[in-house]
């Protein structure tokens, strides 16, 4: 199972470049503003140095007042400049993040279904939640901080150089050791913090699952098991936290021990220069104060670099989704639809053995075909081939003479709808949950569709179609969600419907009522229904029995009963006829001529 691609470093760099270029003027403006703010920030220590010099030279109170007022001015200037710099940066970040996440959603929605299923929901879900928000906070908070800190540090060290080049050189003394330990730390930090986050999520998950399954825990007396399970999670989280603590222990100790080194060097060099008379006392004092000032941005820079690194990695995963080649646009749907024809279709998942061994099937427009058979016979696989989600390894699936996989994907989905027992209720109102199937449908039509599928509960909702569904709002049960899915189908009014156990979550009585109501509404549509309840087969025009990847029988319910083959045995056993052995005696494949028009 191969996962979704991850963008390489070059691609990520180019994407970052594009983000910056798109907003070139803002980027330049905010760099200039930040630099100006940082320069204003340099003024107070320098002015303090000047004060010291002037006082030492015997200056009066008036001079001190003037210089102190200058400090006030510098502080105000710094505050204003950094305000506008931040605001510009903030707006830039918001724009970039919005762009990013919209692009991600567009790419996600473009993903071919087969890819989504192959990679599983987990990877994509992580990218959509963790990675998108990590990139978001990186662009919004981390990058600006890094920009500010870098500009500040550059100017602080630059200022020390301006005071005297030798003082500047002395100020760099602590940097090599900080650089070495930072490299060491960064190489280990990201995986360690990710592991810590994962361990924390695991513990929360252990607690939530236990709460979710509280009744099961009580019924099966699993309390001790669950406690033991949760305790291992507590232990793992502790181990993960100790690992990150060990990293911090080395990193913080080394970095903090490096901070006094440049101060010491500047004081010693300053003492020498003072002695030779090349600098004033004020300059040396200002240099030490600048170094003091440098600690804060340096600290922040070091703390955020790890985040930036993680943001970069997340961005690579976010961009990776866009690297999946989209489904190629295909041909138009044949007018009027035409027959659904399967010829010699074989299919296997990945490199596994064939699941379908040469399926031949003809479904006339407007026909209702039921597919029955034991689990694992390949019914769902056949449904996917018919819907064009997968292409057969050999053979063909066509509608009106066009291969279904060649049709335009969007068009195909609208015309050939596949409803499985897997249902999903989208966050939003009941209307939102219906409208995407038929954007122009009136409220009346929506209510009618809900009534058709027996969703009586919908009439009792407090806010009608505006009732919010999903997490944190009204949660639908499995049966209700399934009815919602069927109501969508009624609204979408596709040319061909493939129902893969689409009523399995309903209780038997409701299921049958719903299926009949559906049939009435969908009269004239081609319906292929896969079902474990044989009522469905009984109500269909024809029944196909799929066993071991082959169609072993096909014909109308009555024909197949009369033929006395596997279906007849199944039907009898399903009715619990007392003397039946209930074993599907299928040694003699019974093939009935195609009776598509036999109604």
């Amino acid at each position, binding site marked *: 199972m191969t996962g979704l691609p991850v963008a390489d470093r070059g691609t990520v760099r180019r994407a970052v470049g594009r983000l910056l270029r798109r907003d070139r003027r803002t980027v330049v403006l905010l760099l200039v503003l930040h630099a100006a703010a940082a320069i204003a920030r340099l003024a107070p220590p320098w002015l303090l140095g000047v004060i010291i010099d002037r006082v030492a030279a015997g200056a009066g109170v008036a001079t001190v007042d003037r210089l102190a007022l200058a400090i006030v001015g510098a502080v105000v200037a710094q505050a204003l400049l950094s305000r506008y710099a931040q605001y510009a940066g903030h707006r830039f970040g918001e724009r970039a993040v919005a762009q990013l996440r919209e692009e991600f959603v*567009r790419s996600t929605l473009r993903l071919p279904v087969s890819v989504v299923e192959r990679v599983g929901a987990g990877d994509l879900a992580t990218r959509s939640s963790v990675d998108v928000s990590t990139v978001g906070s990186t662009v919004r908070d981390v990058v600006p901080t890094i920009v500010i800190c870098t500009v500040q540090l550059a100017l602080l060290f630059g200022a020390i150089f301006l005071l005297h080049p030798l003082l500047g050189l002395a100020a760099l003394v602590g940097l090599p050791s900080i650089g070495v330990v930072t490299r060491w730390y960064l190489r280990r930090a990201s995986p360690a913090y990710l592991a810590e986050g994962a361990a924390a999520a695991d513990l929360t998950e252990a607690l939530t699952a236990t709460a979710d399954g509280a009744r099961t825990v009580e019924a099966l007396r*699993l309390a001790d098991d669950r406690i033991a399970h949760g305790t291992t999670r507590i232990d793992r989280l502790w181990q993960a936290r100790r690992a990150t603590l060990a990293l911090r222990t080395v990193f913080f100790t080394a970095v903090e021990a490096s901070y006094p080194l440049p101060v010491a060097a500047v004081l010693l060099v300053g003492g020498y220069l003072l*002695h030779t008379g090349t600098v004033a006392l004020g300059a040396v004092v200002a240099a030490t104060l600048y170094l003091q000032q440098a600690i804060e941005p340096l600290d922040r820079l070091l703390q955020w670099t790890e985040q930036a690194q993680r943001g970069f990695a997340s961005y690579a995963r976010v961009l990776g989704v866009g690297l999946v080649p989209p489904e190629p646009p295909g041909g138009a749907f044949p007018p009027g639809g035409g027959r659904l024809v399967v010829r010699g279709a074989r299919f296997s998942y990945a490199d596994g053995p064939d699941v379908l061994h040469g399926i031949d099937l003809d479904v006339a427009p407007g026909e209702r075909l039921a597919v029955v058979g034991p689990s694992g016979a390949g019914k769902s696989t056949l449904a996917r081939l018919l819907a064009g989600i997968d292409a057969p390894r050999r053979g063909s699936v066509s509608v009106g003479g066009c291969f279904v996989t060649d049709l335009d994907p969007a068009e195909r*989905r609208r015309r050939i709808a596949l409803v499985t027992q897997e249902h999903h209720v989208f966050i939003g109102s009941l209307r939102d949950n219906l409208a995407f199937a038929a954007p122009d449908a009136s409220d009346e039509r929506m209510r009618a569709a809900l009534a058709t599928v027996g969703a009586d509960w919908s009439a009792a909702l407090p806010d009608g179609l505006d009732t919010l569904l999903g997490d944190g709002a009204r949660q639908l049960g499995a049966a209700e969600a399934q009815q919602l899915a069927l109501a969508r189908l009624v609204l979408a009014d596709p040319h061909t419907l493939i129902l893969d156990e689409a009523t399995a979550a309903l209780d038997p009585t409701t299921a049958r009522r719903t299926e009949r109501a559906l049939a009435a509404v969908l009269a004239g549509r081609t319906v292929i229904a896969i079902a474990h309840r044989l009522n469905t087969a009984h109500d269909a025009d024809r029944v196909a029995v799929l066993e071991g990847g082959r169609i072993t029988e096909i014909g109308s319910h009555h024909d197949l009963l009369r033929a006395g083959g596997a279906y007849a045995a199944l039907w009898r056993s399903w009715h619990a006829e007392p003397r039946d052995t209930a074993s599907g005696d299928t040694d003699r494949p019974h093939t009935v001529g195609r009776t598509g028009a036999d109604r």
Partner: protein
Amino acid sequence: MPPQIPHPDPGSPNLGGPLRYLWWLVRCQPWRVLRGSLLGTAWMVGLSVRPYLVSRAVDDGLRAGDMPALTVWVAAIVAAGLGLSWLGILRHRTMTFVREDAKARSAALVLRQVARIGAVLRRRAAAGEVATVGGSDIDWTAQVLTLTGPGVGAVVAYAVVAVVLWSISPLLALCVLVGVPAVGLVVGPLLRRLDGAESVYRQHQGALTARCGDIVAGLRVLAGVGGRDLFARRYAARSQQLRAEGYRVGAVASWIDAATLAIPGLFLAAVVWLGARMTVTGEISVGELVAVYGYVATLIVPVWFLLEGSHQFIRGRVAARRIIDLLTLTPDDVGGPRGGGQRPSRGVPGRASGPGTVPDARRPEPAPARPADLHDPVTGLTVHAGRLTAVAADDPADAVALADRLGRYVVSDVTWGGRPLSGRPLDEVRARILVAEQESYIFAGTLREVLRTRPGTGDERITEALRAASAEDVVDALPAGLDTPVDARARMLSGGQRQRVRLARALLAEPEVLILVDPTSAVDAHTEARIAERLRSARAGRTTLVLATSPLLLGRADTVAHLRAGRIVSTGTHLDLFHRDPDYRALVDRDSADEPAEPYRGHP
């Protein structure tokens, strides 16, 4: 001195209130907390050493042109820096241990509570609430303990700086000592406002992330019915809304940030001004002026710590309150006493007694020594010991309610061996009567772990149970068989597969009485027939009740009862009822009544 985590026994917390709970977390590790306080203090005080040393280096070394003195002071600066970094890391480690001990202890308590509280949790505390407690409240509560280390240190450091400043100039000392906290008090609320503005933004952002996850989760549905463009547009519209909201927050946030920069800066300027004038008049030396500048900068650290700490304290109290609420949740009243109540709480109010509560709740009546009949007076159903009974209910809700009564998940007048079920020890009831419901939870783990709910269940028994549930193909289809990891709720399996795994698990639990609610509703006819046949032999000689309307299952039962409008209206064998109870026939006949019945051979 790292703590021993996980705690074998987290102890009995004081649940009398959030503060008591927090204090209990401290009392569990008194020496570690003391060590944290000492290190926190030493480190905080140490922060003000550097400005002092620098001022001495300036005054005694640079200004005096005394190179040896300068060298000494510089050496002192380096040594102090090394010492400070060492103190800092020791403090950080100790405080991390203090917090981790508190977190692990709270987590252990919450874990024990959610594991033991039982069915009540699903109704009373949504799983989301447990997620909040587990995901953030435990952390917030532990965060409060930081106050015991750097918090104590901050107070001491403040006092030390006060003394030093006083020795330089009482006037300057007063200014700084009053000014720094005042600056904090002004800036603190500003930051809180920023937090408020951002929390709205974060909420919207969380909602947008949820939308994105929602789209990902629903991709297959969108693929089936269409609507991708609509979702892309809708998401983009919301994303733009969030961007606009972000602009608004940015406008406010940048002003607040500027203020937090300007206010301390202006205060520092004022102090420098005052100090410089005093230097002119010779009241203080140049070195002292530099030191004052440094002290103001260092004093900001403890003051911030205290402000931040008070903020954390407020949040931690709320979080601790939520933990306590969860820990004091009491189990459902199911009549009679709850056995094995290892409840960690103190001062939990006594359970209110319901209609079915036995008067002497303290001493339960012993459970019947051997398998005994269960009788439900509400419906009139009797489940005979050692037999396979089936109930066909017109209304599925009635069947669920019946199972709840027989399994004692509600207060009822059900009798077991002729005596009230609610009077028996609950532990024993749970051990001997199992209600296997449709939606019973499947925990993540390997398939073997999912199935094996009793220790010492061998693979042979598992294989047997899988066969009885006709679930061998589920295992065969999994890449690593029984060792394949299954996700929570077994979402990776189909509905029919899940149902059979649940059935196999219930069979493996080998309860004396097994109550199965609609065990085959999601499986195909072939499989259903096999299950009906094998279930009977798997449960031979033991009490089993099946609630279903499938003729396949009903046909295999010793006795079938028809539950109509809340009462058992007829009892007999399946064939018996099929002939003499037309309503039963209409209910279970899979040829719906509105169709002419299919005349095939041997139809009863």
